[in-house]
């Protein structure tokens, strides 16, 4: 035997069958014709917008990573070159080697 709650749920679900059809707006045809007069919207699906943003962020991230690595590498290379050219093999710049 069903309890009151189950009976209530059954009645709610059954109410789906009792919904009568309603008349649509009398001016529907006029509005459709008005919409057809307008130029069609270039509706870009939202998914494509998100995908483009994600791809651009990835490209930007890759560019930034490459730029940072290049800067660090080129700075250290330049430093090594300078050291070699001037023969600065020790840290003591002020020593009197003469």
């Amino acid at each position: 035997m069903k309890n009151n709650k189950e009976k209530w749920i059954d009645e709610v679900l059954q109410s789906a069958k009792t919904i009568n059809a309603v008349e649509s707006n009398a001016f529907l045809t006029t509005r459709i014709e008005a919409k057809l007069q307008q130029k069609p919207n270039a509706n870009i699906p939202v998914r494509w917008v998100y995908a483009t943003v994600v791809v651009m962020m990835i490209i930007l991230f890759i560019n930034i990573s490459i730029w940072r690595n290049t800067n660090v590498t080129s700075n250290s290379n330049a430093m090594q070159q300078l050291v070699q050219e001037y023969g600065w093999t020790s840290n003591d710049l002020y020593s009197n080697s003469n």
Partner: protein
Amino acid sequence: MLNFQDESTFRAFIKEHQNMVFNVVLKMVQHVNDAEEITQDVFVDVYRKPEMFRGNASITTWLYRIAMNKSIDHLRRKKKWSLFGPAKNETEPLEFFHPGVQTENREKAVFLFKAMKKLPAKQYEAWVLSEMENLSYKEISEVMNVSLSSVESLIFRARQNLRKILSGMYPENEKRKIENEK
């Protein structure tokens, strides 16, 4: 293939099918103004792309398919908008009073529509087509482009989920009535 030779043919087509389209969209989106907009969009699509109707299903099935797809897209856009900012219709009432519901069933129908909103899209679609539009499983499978067994499974799961959701919505005053009787 559909061919609208002149305006009067298209107007007759709209007149023949507008109520069917509007009613199914209204049950899906639960908002009269939105349903009217979407119904217009359905017929605009039909007029602009009649070649999309390939004749392998009835015109009604095809219209149902366009109407359901546009309704689902609309519901998804609404949800996304509310993630990033205020909901599109801030003044939209939380409860939906379908104009076609008889007075004695109004309260229960409100609970039903509230519960339906919590279903996954496919189950929602199958439920509306089956229980509210009274389409056969075969017709639903054609509209949704899924197998018959998928339709059965979707409707079964929709019913189960609705029972679970409604169980949590059981009104307090009913509970109190029972406690008082005890």
